């Protein structure tokens, strides 16, 4: 623990340089002025927040919030006397919407973002356009009524939302022992319940209604009566920008006053909506809120000593837990990679043709498909291709993301190790093999006593970098819900909004890991060094990571 603290304080010094560039300050100049100068207004939208903001069949963004933003854009055009103002659409996710707003990428976020005090430290909201409650959806057959029924189960929620934060807090406070998986977006989260990887999905009820309505079997689903909280939605804009906010608020107020809101509301909540023509049938609840707050990006390196909302300790503990998963995944995958890689690598140098071909095929398959795609294949596809009972068992395994990541990374890396081992053996002059055979050693003996001991020394440096790769590549597993180091940095960012502190800490930890591994391996190399041989020669650099 002491070392960790020292590490973080080293980080503090290192990143002072970053501070010189200046804290992000997107708003001082005024969004209106910026829009005027650039002739462009950029709307952030979601890709699956039905009916607020989502992609239709033709991949264009539509929805209730998009229509409202259209009204705001009209008002901006009038205010600036720019009838030809260009409107750009920029997709955002729960995790990216606030940073993208803060850094000036988007000017309005037209989606389903909860307006709360925490977020008001970072952004501003216009008049509330919807009110929802945090509930969960599950299969009727599972008969899950309230939080107590979920004890010890796995649930899912969308990362970066207030919903996941709430359930995480409750889980910690009430000690429910629920495993909470973060999903990239609502569709992915819903799919996790649909495919049986999670028992329930916590989200704003309105979104749950729409997901159920557009699912293949709406009758199979039920939404909990118990609500964790009630939440107002608002269109997001940058904070500290009164002139822009005035225009936006004015536009919204006008929509409400003229009664136009009823038409727009009915269009999205009381009629069939694209793409599937489902009618959500949610009557209007009219709550209006109007909040303004003024806080800029605050540097706060003390963040790591603050308690995180999961009730398990400080944010530093979150980071350490993430590091633990990174190491566990990397080590377990490395064992698989080394064992399989050695075998496949050796096989590829044997005189038996079909064995060699098999080894080559192994390497080519794992080398030529992106790791992320392989991760998805193992996580989403393989369980579906197995017999139903095995598939279900796999999906409901506790920590299935961890096991999947280990297997996937292990096999992926085995191909790379095999390539290094093959190259190592082949770099030995063929005379060594002949000398062994001429002595009367069998082929296995020649490998065991002569080729492999030398090849291992030669491949030590490239294997070191492969091990470093495994550590780094384990970050890809965050896409299937493994909360390793990068994912825990991201979750700190999402809960606390301290983007730079969180990512800096993670980066420094990765660098420290790198250093430790390199030094350790160098020691090992020195211990295995053969007297009279100068190093193992400078190998050609291999492409890779």
């Amino acid at each position, binding site marked *: 623990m002491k070392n960790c603290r020292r590490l973080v304080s080293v980080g503090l010094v290192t990143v002072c340089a970053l501070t010189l*560039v200046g804290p992000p300050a997107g708003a001082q100049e005024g969004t209106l002025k910026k829009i005027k100068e650039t002739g462009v207004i950029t709307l952030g939208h979601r890709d699956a927040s039905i009916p607020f903001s989502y992609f239709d069949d033709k991949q264009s963004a539509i929805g209730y919030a998009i229509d409202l933003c259209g009204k705001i854009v009209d008002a901006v055009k009038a205010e600036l006397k720019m009838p030809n103002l260009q409107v750009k659409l920029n997709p955002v996710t729960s995790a990216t919407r606030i940073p993208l707003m803060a850094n000036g990428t988007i000017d309005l976020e037209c989606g389903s973002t909860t307006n709360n005090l925490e977020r008001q430290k970072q952004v501003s909201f216009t008049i509330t356009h919807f009110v929802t409650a945090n509930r969960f959806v599950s299969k009727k057959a599972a008969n899950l009524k309230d939080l107590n029924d979920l004890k010890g189960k796995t649930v899912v929620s969308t990362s970066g939302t207030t919903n996941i934060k709430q359930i995480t807090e409750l889980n910690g406070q009430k000690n429910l022992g629920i495993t909470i998986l973060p999903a990239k977006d609502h569709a992915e989260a819903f799919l996790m319940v649909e495919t049986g990887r999670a028992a329930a999905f916590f989200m704003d009820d309105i979104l749950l209604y729409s997901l159920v309505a557009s699912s293949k079997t709406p009758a199979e689903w039920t939404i909990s009566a118990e609500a964790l909280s009630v939440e107002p939605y608002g269109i997001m804009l940058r904070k500290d920008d009164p002139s822009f906010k005035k225009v936006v608020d004015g536009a919204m107020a006008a929509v409400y006053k003229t009664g136009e809101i009823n038409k727009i509301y009915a269009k999205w909540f009381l009629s069939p909506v694209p793409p599937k023509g489902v009618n959500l049938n949610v009557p209007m609840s009219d709550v209006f809120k109007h909040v303004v707050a003024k806080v800029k990006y605050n540097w706060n390196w003390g963040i790591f000593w603050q308690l995180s909302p999961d009730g398990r300790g400080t944010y530093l503990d979150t980071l350490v837990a993430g590091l633990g998963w990174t190491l566990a995944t990397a080590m377990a995958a490395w064992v698989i990679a080394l064992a399989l890689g050695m075998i496949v690598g050796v096989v590829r140098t044997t005189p038996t043709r079909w064995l060699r071909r098999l080894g080559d095929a192994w390497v080519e398959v794992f080398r030529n498909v992106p790791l992320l795609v392989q991760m998805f294949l193992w996580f989403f596809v393989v369980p579906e291709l197995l017999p139903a009972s095995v598939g279900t068992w796999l999906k409901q395994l506790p920590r299935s993301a961890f096991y999947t990541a280990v297997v996937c990374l292990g096999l992926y890396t085995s191909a790379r190790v095999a390539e290094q081992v093959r190259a190592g053996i082949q770099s030995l002059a063929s005379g060594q093999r002949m000398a062994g055979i001429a002595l009367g050693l069998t082929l296995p003996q020649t490998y065991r006593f002569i080729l492999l001991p030398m090849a291992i020394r030669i491949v030590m440096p490239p294997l070191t970098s492969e091990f470093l790769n495994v550590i780094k590549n384990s*970050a890809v597993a965050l896409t299937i819900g493994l909360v390793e180091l990068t994912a825990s940095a991201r979750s700190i960012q999402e809960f606390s909004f301290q983007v730079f502190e969180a990512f800096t800490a993670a*980066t420094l930890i990765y660098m420290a890991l790198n250093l430790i591994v390199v030094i350790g391996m160098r020691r090992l190399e020195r211990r295995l060094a053969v007297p009279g041989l100068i190093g193992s020669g400078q190998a050609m650099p291999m492409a890779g990571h």
Partner: protein
Amino acid sequence: MLTAFDWDIIRRTAPYLFREGMTFTLTLTALAMTGGIVFGTLLAMMRLASYRTLSTAASAYVNVMRSTPLVLVIFWFYFLVPWMGGWLLGATRPIQVGAFLSSLVTFMMFEAAYYCEIMRAGIQSIPRGQMWAGYALGLSYWQTMGQIVLPQAFRNMLPVLLTQTIILFQDTSLVYVLSITDFLGAASKVAQRDGRLVEMYLFVAVVYFAISFGLSSLVKRLQARLTVPGR
């Protein structure tokens, strides 16, 4: 659940996947490669420079990039690029940066660290005598580098550079974490909308495999041709 498979969905969505997704992926790969090699070569020259400040700065950059996971770098740059851009252009506020430009900068900067190491080995593989011969003819540092050393280094390293580019091509799939519609992103949107994960992800894997395998076979052939003695 996902009992019966619907392979026809691939035929129905392929035009969208390739027109939207693959175009993004390939454009990003090509531009990031070009930028990455240029920036990487500059970094390599810095690392080999005799000015300590230059070489230290370049090594620090390369080492940080090489010890950080790409996913984390993508997150970093997604939030950093608008400010960096504003700072570089001397603008008073963060500039507007779209998803494409942001990922382009990310991959250029990230891959440059890897291209740098390849080019460094390439430059070091050229005997010192070549440099001296250039100077002896009265050429300047930049002329010697540009006319004599770099062309040879580039040629020697061409297969490795191309192999790195194939890796870059596969790496671009990671923009998925930003919900960008690259090839994988497009397929995954369809997959999640229609609940057709098996079909779509298998198809994606096959396409990536075909392209990467095809390209690496070409690289192997090129390598064989380059190693013909007495070229």
